[in-house]
């Protein structure tokens, strides 16, 4: 068996990728629409949140009603699963007809796919609804973690790190890294962060770096361009100081954002954080967080980034994928996503670019009970270069990831 199969794998893996012959051209939108009709698009997106799943179901209904394109949500436990799949397909020489049509992606996953030429495009800026995207007020939609998107992903929502705290237990939340250090010392066991290399946990390290470096400009370039050890020394000193007073004395960490949220809901910690400013309100409305939870941001500002829809180079249903990426930028869908009862995601569209009817959709939205109004959200700090994410996570694992 072994003897017969290995050569097949080898031959397939070694054969050169053939260029796809008839990729759809988003500039000819009419042709895209007619090609897409009847296709079923497989949207690979994290499947861990029932609200997001319900939203995707709703978008699927609209996609079928308006364009005759069916949508299947491939619920991922981890976005990297979709990346893995595309890689496996390329190893097997499947350069067209791939299983992944669209990925909800950002950060290191995006950079990794971009660097390995696994993405179709550029397409984003040719989408008809691109005209509503506010690239002046939100330049972050053009760069993902300092890496130019180059039209290989259509931005569809913006995220900000916000801290969530139980106002019944914390009277005055710590609004700076320094205040947080003092609060942790005074309240041992009541704060933690997800274990790096988890995305949110590593984001906390980056947020801390923003507060600890003298010149944040160093964060915008790769780590090997600076004296990394000297620049990060204050971070490890900070962590060394807070770790004994973390939840479980830092002997265990929650796995990810939902696990952190569950600790807050169970009353095991008093302060958590998330990347969706509307999450706390929605969870309170659903009875999953106590009504006393509120949110705050650091005076200095908190990390902000965007999420994208990207299309793998070998996707089987590229036309349908393009129609989906365009639909998601539709003002009606964007307003739905921003509705705190639905998702509470922040739109990428510019209000001044919309007509009156569409603008009214956004103006009608109310903030949730725990959500900060825009004027209190403070500054969105740029995400550092992706190498910081990788390097900080790796060093964290070396320093704290192995029990001694």
């Amino acid at each position, binding site marked *: 068996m072994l003897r017969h199969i290995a050569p097949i794998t080898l031959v397939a893996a070694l054969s050169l990728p053939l260029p796809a012959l008839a990729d759809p051209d988003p500039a000819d939108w009419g042709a895209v629409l007619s090609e897409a009709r009847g296709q079923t698009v497989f949207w690979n997106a994290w*499947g*861990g949140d029932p609200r997001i799943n319900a939203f995707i179901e709703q978008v699927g209904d609209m996609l079928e009603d308006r364009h005759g394109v069916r949508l299947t949500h*491939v619920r991922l436990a*981890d976005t990297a699963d979709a990346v893995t799949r595309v890689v496996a397909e390329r190893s097997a020489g499947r350069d067209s007809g791939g299983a992944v049509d669209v990925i909800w992606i950002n950060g290191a996953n995006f950079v990794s796919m971009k660097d390995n030429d696994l993405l179709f495009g550029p397409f984003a800026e040719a989408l008809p609804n691109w005209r509503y995207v506010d690239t002046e007020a939100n330049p972050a939609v053009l760069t993902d973690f300092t890496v130019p998107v180059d039209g290989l992903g259509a931005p569809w929502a913006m995220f900000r790190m916000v801290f969530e705290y139980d106002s019944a237990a914390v009277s005055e939340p710590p609004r700076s890294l320094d205040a947080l250090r003092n609060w942790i010392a005074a309240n041992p066991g009541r704060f933690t962060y997800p274990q790096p290399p988890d995305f949110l946990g590593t984001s906390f390290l980056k947020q801390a770096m923003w507060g600890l470096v003298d010149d944040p400009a160093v964060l915008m370039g790769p780590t090997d361009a600076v004296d990394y050890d000297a620049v990060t020394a204050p971070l490890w000193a900070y962590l060394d100081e807070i770790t004994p007073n973390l939840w479980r004395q830092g002997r265990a*960490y929650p*796995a990810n954002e939902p696990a952190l949220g569950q600790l807050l809901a*169970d009353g095991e910690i008093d302060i958590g954080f998330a990347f969706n400013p509307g999450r706390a309100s929605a969870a309170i409305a659903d009875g999953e967080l106590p009504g006393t939870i509120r949110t705050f941001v650091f005076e200095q500002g908190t990390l902000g980034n965007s999420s994208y829809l990207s299309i793998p180079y070998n996707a089987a249903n590229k036309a349908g994928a393009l129609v989906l990426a365009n639909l998601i930028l539709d003002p009606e869908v964007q307003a739905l996503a921003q509705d705190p009862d639905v998702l509470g995601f922040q739109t990428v569209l510019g209000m001044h670019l919309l007509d009156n009817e569409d603008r009214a959709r956004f103006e009608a939205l109310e903030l949730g009970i725990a959500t900060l109004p825009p004027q209190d959200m403070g500054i969105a700090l740029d995400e550092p270069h992706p190498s910081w994410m990788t390097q900080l996570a790796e060093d964290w694992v070396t320093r704290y990831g192995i*029990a001694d």
Partner: protein
Amino acid sequence: MPVRATTGARPPGAVALFPPLTVLLLAGPVLAGVAGVLLPAFGFMPALGGHALSLDPWRALWAWPGLAAAVRLSVVTGLAATAISLAITLLIVAAWHGTRSFALVTRALSPLLSLPHAAAAFGLAFLIAPSGWIARALSPWATGWDRPPDFLSVNDPAGLALIAGLVIKEIPFLLLMTLAALGQVDATRSALVARTMGYGRVSGWMKAVAPRVYAQIRLPVFAVLAYSMSVVDVALILGPTRPPTLAVQIVDWMNRPDLSHRFTAAAGAALQLALVVGILALWFAGERLAGALGRCWATGGARGRRLDPVLRPLALVLAGISAGAVFLGLAGLAIWSVAGMWRFPDLIPESFSLRHWQGQARGLGAAVQVTALIGVASTLAALVLAVGCLEREFRIRRPTDRRLSALIYLPLIVPQVAFLPGLTTLALVAGVGGTVAAVAVAHLVFVLPYVFLALSDPWRAWDTRCATVGHSLGAGPNRVLWAIRLPMLTRALLIAAAVGFATSVAQYLPTLLVGAGRVATLTTEAVALAASGNRRLIGVWAVMQMALPFTVFALALGLPALIFARRRGMAP
């Protein structure tokens, strides 16, 4: 022992094809998959720029500071979980076999076999967490806690919670395997003889019966050992995190956005395979040692009657804790699925809601259909193959080759993380990835061993004089099979089918990888939602994940009563 027919061996006919076909279906995917892991482990994966063989993946693996601890964890949790579940299982059988309590205990434990490991682990986690049910039941009146205490129970660094989670799931499996073996070793009479000679119940059974029973359940014990060392989902839920077990770390590397970690993952998977082989060898040596010591102990002649008053209640308590932990954990999950706000230290939720059930209805319905389709297809195929192999063995009048019996366990002993990624590539090359049919074939690899296990004993125990009577009345071998043997073995066939179906329902990695994420079953959806840590959702899906195989088991037990309502000789 089955009674041999007086007639000589007959030409086996078409059934001769079944054993080679079975070997091909079982060993082929495993070996091909292992090859698909070994190549990238030595740097060969052209899609990611690995064109030449190198040792770099191994250097990267060695450079990981957690390697020693992760390897130690995998070995210790695997060995401990296997030894403890085997010891408790043998103790339960030794202390209570043949009594009414024993029937009760086996009846309480056997449905747990159909329960997916992940669901049991979630239930246990909710039970023992500082904000879990046990702490809630004691708070604040006994403990004074009005907030969850800050201690480490789930995810403890020593892996105790992980070992406990594995033990409560492996006891039912080993117990059922032991029950099947008891019939073949004439256990009841041996134990009786030992007791008439003045031996205590436990020590008599251990000395006279256990050695022969153990010889019969060795392969299932190996499967438990290999599984416990390399399990991913249970270790994610209950296991340590700094560092995690090797298997969890391998999956973590496979999921890193930086694709170069795929090579490290492959090297880790190869190491995992070597570890399992090494520990199995160690277990082998342990068997020899235990055998030698056991002979001295047995020939020493101590009657051990004073052990019974201690060991018999202990066995009952251990069985009760084990079954109780699973049932309470599941009850907790079921309540979470309909819970509104549920704060610490409330024992039950403040409010209830069906919102999550309603919200998931559409997805649940679709997933149940796909799961049932794959389960039925793979189970039917497995039944045909198992019956074919067993019938051939009967017709040529020779027991199945020992090597074939061992091969059947291959998919259960080679760790899934060590061959499924390679198998996925193979499915893609063949152009069948992402289809329900391909997933059903992948499930067959895991379903077939269990169906074979469940069917082979009743099949071999069938009274072959019935066949002799059939032949003497002029029926050919095929007619004997269809008109006499299969109808008489209806009950065994249905139970084997239920075991196979439950195995198929529980498959996570094969479904995810071979299905290219496009084939959504109850288990893939449940594990994707498990990433959310949302207990209400996990509750909804775990209840469904449990309900489907449960229903099939109930059918398998109930149908024979209906079918044979008018045939008194077939009554249970």
